[in-house]
């Protein structure tokens, strides 16, 4: 049973560029949440997708957007990258929106130069 898979694992971008991160949820899960973890910090909630719609959003600007596909996989897009966007981006999946136990992927480490 595959767990949550994320790609790419590492990437380097320059300021102003755009990035797309991908996530496949654990088998049987229909809800995907994205978190940003800056160095030395706890994960911060970006948004949650359920039934292909953004259901909840944390305190992140509109430069952060996402999508969920019919197979429940998800993408996180960040436009106009800033140095401060450098972080580990974690995808978490669950069954249903009512967050119980979240299953996390290994993360995508983004470095913005």
């Amino acid at each position, binding site marked *: 049973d595959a767990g949550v898979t994320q790609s790419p694992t590492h990437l380097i971008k320059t300021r102003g560029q755009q990035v797309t991160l991908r996530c496949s949820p654990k088998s049987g899960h229909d809800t995907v949440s994205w978190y940003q973890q800056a160095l030395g910090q706890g994960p*911060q909630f970006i948004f949650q997708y359920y039934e292909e719609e953004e259901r909840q959003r944390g305190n992140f600007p509109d430069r952060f957007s996402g999508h969920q596909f019919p197979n429940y996989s998800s993408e996180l897009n960040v436009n106009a990258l800033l140095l401060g966007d450098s972080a580990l981006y974690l995808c978490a999946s669950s069954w249903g*929106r009512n967050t119980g136990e979240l299953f996390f992927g290994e993360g995508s480490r983004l470095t913005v130069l």
Partner: protein
Amino acid sequence: AQSVAQPEDQVNVAEGNPLTVKCTYSVSGNPYLFWYVQYPNRGLQFLLKYITGDNLVKGSYGFEAEFNKSQTSFHLKKPSALVSDSALYFCAVRSPNRLAFGKGNQVVVIP
């Protein structure tokens, strides 16, 4: 808003000694509390959760946590620490339909 606090940055403990990682919470209503562990360059792994019921919750890898309503605490414990327990530990609260994490505690188990 629901939140948790982890007052210590780092916890050092000798191998074989008891390990405690502290967490306090601030919620309106009944708290749903979680502990996760993160190894270097890895995602977060679920350890245990408290929703209701017994105040002592048992989880993975020999960890347990004690829910204390009067002290608004949810401390993580392990009776005998292993070197392999060295990692970053996060307390979290459901807030709602998302998890709000603490800043994390680095645990160092000294051989």
